[in-house]
């Protein structure tokens, strides 16, 4: 296995619903190597999205430790996590979640606004990101003017524009037709192969998971299988 970028140790996450305590993740330990493409699979409620959110710093664990690179993110405050996410994590969502009132260019530029960059630097990074996903000619289009596949490409451009080492994707092909899904998965492979990005992808689709280097299967908050492709 490559040098681990993500280290999860004894991770525990529980929610309280009324008087009932629900353990979503239980004493979960795993490593994800740098420049690795990892797929997370499992039935609904198995905890895969929760795990993804915790690794991405969107939520705080109930117990355990998560380290990404040199940062122990399980000990960070909300605002520290927000700053960390801007620089170190890119997000790709199933439903793209582009801001409808902004153009493709402006959507991709959003995370860069939080970084100390000049206008020219931002422009260069946005242009490169959109070119990388094959949409250099759609910069001024609004999300409503783009197809689902194109919107997801913009979503990926937004995820990589800050040059993060980790990209998390929550069912990125779940809302796409087969051809578009294949294009998106190919794009993710390119990101890993050419740019050395570490990718963690939650999916229900075995074909999509097969494109990853490794697939982890979760059930009832625990790792039950680790398959290397």
């Amino acid at each position, binding site marked *: 296995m490559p040098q681990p970028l993500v280290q999860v140790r004894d991770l525990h996450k529980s929610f309280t619903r009324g008087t009932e305590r629900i353990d979503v993740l239980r004493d979960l330990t795993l490593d994800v190597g740098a420049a690795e493409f990892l797929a997370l699979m499992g039935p609904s409620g198995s905890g895969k999205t929760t795990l993804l959110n915790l690794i991405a710093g969107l*939520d705080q664990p109930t117990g355990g430790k998560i380290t990404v690179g040199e940062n122990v993110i399980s000990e960070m405050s*909300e605002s520290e996590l927000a700053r960390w996410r801007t620089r170190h994590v890119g997000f790709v969502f*199933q439903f793209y979640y582009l801001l409808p*009132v902004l153009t493709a260019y402006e959507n991709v530029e959003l995370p860069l*606004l939080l970084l100390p960059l000049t206008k020219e630097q931002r422009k260069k990074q946005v242009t490169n990101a959109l070119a990388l996903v094959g949409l250099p000619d759609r910069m001024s289009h609004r999300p409503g003017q783009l197809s689902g596949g194109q919107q997801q490409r913009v979503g990926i451009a*937004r995820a990589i524009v800050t040059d993060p080492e980790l990209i998390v994707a929550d069912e990125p092909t779940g809302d796409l037709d087969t051809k578009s899904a294949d294009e998106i998965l190919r794009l993710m492979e390119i990101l890993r192969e050419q740019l050395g990005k570490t990718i963690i992808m939650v999916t229900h689709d075995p074909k999509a998971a097969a494109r990853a280097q490794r697939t982890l299967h979760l059930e009832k908050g625990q790792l039950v299988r680790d398959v290397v492709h």
Partner: protein
Amino acid sequence: MFGMPTDAMTPTGFDPSMFMLSGYLLGLLGGLNLLAIILGVVTLPVFFLVLFGVEQVARVTANVSGWFPAKLVLYMFRGLRRSPLRTSLTYIALFVLTLVLSLIYSVLVFIGRVTTEKEADFKAIATHKTIIPSQMPRSHYEDFKKQLAKLPEGMRPVNGEADIMSWSFFFGTTDPISKRPDSNIFAFCVEPRKILTMMDGLDDLTGKEKADLDAAVAEMERNPQAIVMSKMRMKKMNLQIGQTIKVTGLSYADLVFDLQIIGELPDGKYDNISFINSAYLFRQLDAWKLNNPKNRTSEPHPMDAKCINLIWVRLPNKEAFERLAAAVNDTGNFSSPQIKLETASSGFGTFLEAFKDILWGMKYLMAPAMVAIMCLVIANAISIGVRERRTEMAVLKVLGFQPRHVLFLVVGEAMLVGLMAGFMSTLIAFRMIGNLKLQIAFFGAFFVPAEVLIYGPMLGAFVSVAGSLMPALAAKNVKVAEVFSKVA
């Protein structure tokens, strides 16, 4: 009438006129709100045009500077375009609020101004001691002048005779058969030369307006049957300078006046009011007593002993007022009827006394209630918007936006609408009514003070910020993981 000891009270002592007054005020408020809504709807295209224009400025600023706050402001503008209907309704609501409150504020400022005492060179008013509107005999005016002459040197009016005048209210019609509103004339019967020195709003004219009024007054002195009318009234009655009109008295029954229009009052000054030489009124009253065929017993006209409504005098200082008030209050000097002397401001205050609860209610109940209700309306509108955009807020947080950025976005969008609605409504109030400087009879000019141009946008911004604060806090505290788990 209101504030009068009335014989029209029911046997239970209940005054039905208060119902009428309530009805009038409710109608007035309803009409004002309706007008404000219509104006708000009419100005919507302008609002969106201005919104678009300012957005372009924000866009250029954001693009040129690349400054993060400028980008956020740009996103606020874009956010407002997201739901034009909601933005329009929010704008109209804030427009109505700021317009109505601007006018209420103007009324309160006006009342405050007319009821504030001047320390020197102020006007005092003599009126009937109990009856409103006041009615006094002509002899009281002469007796009043005698009392003035008895004041010590230094307490008498500085300009002598020019600083005292009597007012007689005259209401008549040019069409005694059908008595339509557009054939009615309301006039102040005064000594013509006093128009130039004693009348608020006419004593400070300049240029051509002053020259025209000087000429008109000179003509009134020469020709007692002359009448000077406001431009507005002349237009309504389709009259022109030089025409002769026959006016039948309504407040002076059976008296007919042949009047020649010899001048007009400037726009916005005493609109719908006319001036007639009081000598002509007195001459007609005398003539009625002597020559009227209906009056076989040569009794004076019923209004003869009631034809002076007010006496005004300009006094040099408070001591003079106190000395003169003591003489006026002395029943030995004025007994039938007794009269009282007040400063103009306290006179107005007495007149407004009947309305004091209503004014208090306007200031301390209605205005705050309107602000509170509007805050709730805005809070509701913004809450709906925030609820619809929870995912968007969560995405912003995922991308690294701090909770305060999200708060700023939500509050900022509302504030932009509030500022613009406040500015546009008060600008309309100021331009439509403010520059007219409406002269309200002897109350002086009513106008919308310039400061509403600042207060209006501030009020709009305050209400929108206050209303959006709770929804903005909810947006700020959005839990990203919860939002996405619900969406999934």
